[in-house]
């Protein structure tokens, strides 16, 4: 015993009993951006048993302002975020089991990832995946915490299957468009505030102190000095297709899945192949080196830059197309260089 958790154990609502519970819990974090890195660091420092982190992206310079686990070297190397996060988290607390996944999470992946998971933390950047998390959470009866931020604004809500309304009850429809980190930016105090709301709730769930859950939809704007906290229990719908009595989990069906996505905060489109595949980066390196453009390669991905666009091709088949927000233009470039 080196007393590393002593201050947390002195906090009466957790105590040594809560600490022991925490040690046996497994949290899945979807996304290793600003929210994901912050939440992961807190959980690992707090002595969680295991965390799994899934992220499809790699570290860039524009991340370093707020994504707390990453370094300049990783931006330089374009290290996948899940790999970079694991390295730093292991250095912070070697006692915690850390499972990292460089992947675009959709229904199939999430079905696999939630096995033996006690809580899902949303640190994603789009509603496509949140609606999938929401349905999976209801199907497997695993609580999850919706969290998001943009500019100086943040929002969070804890969803407990069988008790609270679900995200589908609250939203009714998937929000389309709207402001993103791309158009209005983001300041790190807003990120940290959302993380604090999310992590306080996470700790309560993990030490099984459900009586103290906030049970309110919380939002704030740190620049405009707004804070709002409202009870949304009444919004729970008996006929909700995700959590109602006659539920169908609509977002788990193939027709609801997106294979292309415009990424938040980036002038970028992601294209995922319809079938799982592994790309031969070495052959691609040779083929693309003959094109007008610059090729960079590491064990996980290959980056190909032309004058106007940059294609980043991941080993798992996905391609990020930087320099466009148009899905059709992205598809053209995808097919032009990758067949």
């Amino acid at each position, binding site marked *: 015993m080196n007393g590393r958790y002593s201050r947390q154990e002195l906090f009466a609502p957790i105590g040594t009993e809560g600490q022991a519970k925490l040690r046996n819990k497994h949290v899945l974090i979807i996304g290793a951006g*600003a929210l994901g890195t912050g939440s992961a660091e807190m959980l690992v420092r707090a002595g969680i048993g295991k965390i799994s982190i899934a992220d499809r992206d790699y570290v860039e310079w524009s991340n370093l302002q707020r994504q707390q686990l990453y370094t300049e070297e990783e931006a330089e190397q374009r290290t996948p975020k899940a790999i970079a996060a694991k390295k730093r988290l292991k250095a912070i607390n070697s006692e915690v089991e850390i499972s990292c996944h460089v992947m675009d999470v959709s229904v199939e992946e999430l079905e696999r990832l939630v096995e033996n998971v006690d809580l899902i933390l949303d640190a994603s*950047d789009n509603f496509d995946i949140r609606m999938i998390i929401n349905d999976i959470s209801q199907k497997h009866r695993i609580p999850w915490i919706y969290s998001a931020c*943009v500019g100086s604004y943040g*929002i969070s809500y804890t969803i407990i299957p069988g008790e609270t309304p679900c995200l589908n009850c609250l939203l009714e429809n998937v*929000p389309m*468009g709207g402001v993103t980190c791309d158009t209005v930016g983001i300041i790190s105090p807003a990120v940290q505030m959302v993380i604090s709301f999310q992590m306080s709730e996470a700790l309560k769930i993990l030490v099984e102190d459900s009586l103290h859950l906030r049970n309110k939809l919380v*939002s704030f704007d740190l620049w405009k000095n707004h804070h*709002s906290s409202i009870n949304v229990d009444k919004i729970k719908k008996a006929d909700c297709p995700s959590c109602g009595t006659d539920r169908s989990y609509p977002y788990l069906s193939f027709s609801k899945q997106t294979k292309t996505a415009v990424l938040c905060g980036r002038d970028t489109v992601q294209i995922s192949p319809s079938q799982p595949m592994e790309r031969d980066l070495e052959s691609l390196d040779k083929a693309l080196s003959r094109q007008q453009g610059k090729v960079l390669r590491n064990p996980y991905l290959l980056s190909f830059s032309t004058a106007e666009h940059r294609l980043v091709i991941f080993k798992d088949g996905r391609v990020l197309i930087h320099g466009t927000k148009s899905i059709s233009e992205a598809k053209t470039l995808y097919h032009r260089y990758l067949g």
Partner: protein
Amino acid sequence: MELTVNGNQIQVPNTVKTVAGLLQHFKLHHKVVIVERNAEILEQAKHTETLIFDKDKIELVHFVGGG
């Protein structure tokens, strides 16, 4: 008309008559917004028909995607 919106006292023009009008006033009408009026939560379908009055206490929470 004076309203308390998210804890702040503000003046809105008298042309704002309904919750939907208020969302338009704040340029939130294209977003998914949860509205609470005088401690009562309103379904989205009720935004157009729900009138607002002087001294109402309104809470507005809009959903964002970034993270």
